[in-house]
């Protein structure tokens, strides 16, 4: 590749990255601010991190968010995988087009509308708003994303693997659990992680469908910011960013390593 570090290239890269990351860098820097005033630098300190862990409200919200995320991502992954299987395997059944349209509609539906309609539904059936309703709403939101990820893997799945398993005496159920599921597992795991991340940072739908005692972290942060940004919130956000960043980095490094190892193996195998 021909790379020249012209003045234009350098400038556009710096500006581009600054546009994307300067706000986040500022947030991280100010989370270590000694001063109580958010915009005035008063020296380095980690005291906001300490006080963060003594802020019961924030800690509760974190715990709620984690539970909502894990439960909704898990349920959405099961349902989304089943939907993807149906859509790729049963190419002809009555109402298939309607089904696929309905599975993927939440992808493009404005969150405000999803949130509002779910709220109306929960009120209509008399379900008290709280932990359960947020979780249900997040399942609705994230299921379609899982379905998309898993379906794209299933499309390229070699069906002769399943035929071979059945040919060797495995029943369809055994074939699914011993062959299909392990082979598409990476896609299912990415689907789960995507669902978890979406649930983690959702504010709009959560504010419609949550109730007392089930305040999620984004809701908590948002409500505190309205009363004024405290360095404590900066610290909470920094931790959130760190968790997400570490997760993403670990996943991509592992992926890259596997890919490189695979290529090396294949080259070695071809040499014989």
């Amino acid at each position, binding site marked *: 590749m021909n790379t020249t570090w012209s003045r234009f290239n350098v400038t556009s890269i710096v500006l581009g990255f600054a546009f994307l990351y300067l706000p986040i860098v500022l947030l991280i820097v100010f989370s270590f601010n000694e001063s109580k005033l958010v915009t005035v630098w008063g020296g380095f300190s980690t005291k906001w991190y300490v006080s963060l862990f003594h802020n019961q409200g924030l800690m509760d919200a974190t715990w709620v968010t984690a539970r909502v995320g894990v439960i909704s991502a898990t349920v959405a992954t099961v349902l989304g995988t089943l939907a993807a299987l149906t859509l790729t395997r049963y190419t002809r059944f009555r109402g298939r087009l309607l089904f696929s349209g309905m599975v993927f509609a939440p992808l493009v539906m404005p969150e405000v509308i999803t949130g509002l309609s779910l709220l109306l539904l929960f009120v209509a059936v008399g379900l008290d708003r709280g932990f359960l309703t947020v979780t249900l709403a997040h399942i609705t939101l994230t299921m379609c994303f899982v379905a998309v990820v898993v379906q794209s893997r299933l499309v390229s799945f070699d069906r002769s693997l399943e035929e071979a398993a059945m040919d060797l005496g495995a029943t369809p159920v055994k074939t699914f659990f011993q062959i299909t599921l392990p082979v598409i597992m990476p896609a299912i795991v990415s689907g789960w992680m995507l669902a978890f991340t979406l649930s983690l940072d959702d504010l709009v739908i959560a504010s419609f469908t949550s109730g007392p005692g089930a305040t999620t972290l984004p809701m908590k942060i948002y409500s505190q910011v309205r009363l004024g940004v405290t360095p404590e919130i900066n610290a909470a956000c920094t931790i959130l960013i760190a968790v997400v960043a570490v997760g993403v980095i670990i996943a991509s490094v592992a992926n890259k390593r596997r890919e490189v190892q695979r290529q090396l*193996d294949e080259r070695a195998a071809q040499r014989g």
Partner: protein
Amino acid sequence: MKSLGSIRRDFAPWNDPNAKPYIQFDNVTKKFGDFTAVNNLSLTIFEREFFALLGASGCGKSTLLRMLAGFEEPTAGRILLDGQDLRGIPPYRRPVNMMFQSYALFPHMTVENNIAFGLKQDGMPKPEIASRVAEMLKLVKLEQFAKRKPHQLSGGQRQRVALARSVAKRPKVLLLDEPLGALDKKLREETQFELMDLQQNLGLTFVVVTHDQEEAMTMADRIAIIDKGEVMQVATPAEVYEAPTSRFVAHFVGNVNMFEGKVAEQTANTTRIAGSSGAQIVVDNAAKTAAGADIVFAIRPEKIKISSKKPADAVNALEGEVYDIAYLGDMTVFHVRLDDGQMVRASTMNAARITEDPLSWNDRAWVSFRPDAGVVLTR
């Protein structure tokens, strides 16, 4: 008695009227929507036979194999295996195993576990599985690769794993779908002989699907030539080559020259054929044919002699001009344009290094052949 070609071994149950058929396709038809893949086809395969289904892609040969394995059900007709009707029996309960064209090795399992997969489904005890897997690995010479994953193997090694996996359960019948299609030429030739040895040693019935006529000729006891979902001919490789029963088969297997004409005269033993341009040839009789009927004499290039002078004793000798010469090392192929315009292909083994009667481009030449060197075809 005259015999066609060489006989591989003393095994010919198809000539024995008392032999019990092992696999029977009984008027089988398979339709996919409006498309008829297999059309009212009947076929009999015997125990321990190495049987090849040969045909161009899309002729329905793979569909036959998939119906035998249970992945497709016939639209009409029935398939019997050892006397048992296979209709309604799912693939996982059929005593046949298949080796897939793509090999279909399980990518998340080691070589060992791939081979053990079928044995585990049968609930075989662990020590027995281990010894059977070891035996299979030894059979395909992959002992040191037991712990590898499929992507860590070369194409040839993957092919052998697929083979080991499909014979591990000792199936009654092994189905092979283009087993050597993905290998390069040299490896393919070696593997052909390995497959034949394996089939002999294990005493299994092999049904192989291939589009490669050389592969089918090398390995199979009998070949079924399939076209558009129908069987054109079922015979030994030598019969298919030396005594094709139709123009399609004659063209499909090997190279052939066709002399078209009408029956001019028929005696007790010979038929005289008059070509459209007046040239006449005399050939051994095939069947009683009415005078004036359209007829074709099909003859293989190596059965035609080419010389610069007219052979004195030849029954059939036609004159022409050398149009093209292809030197292939072991043999030379001449294309001769006869005086009536027909092109004839004649091949000569280069048994000696120096040719006494060298022919060159545009030389006048004579092609000659015996009356029994080819076959008379009416369809």
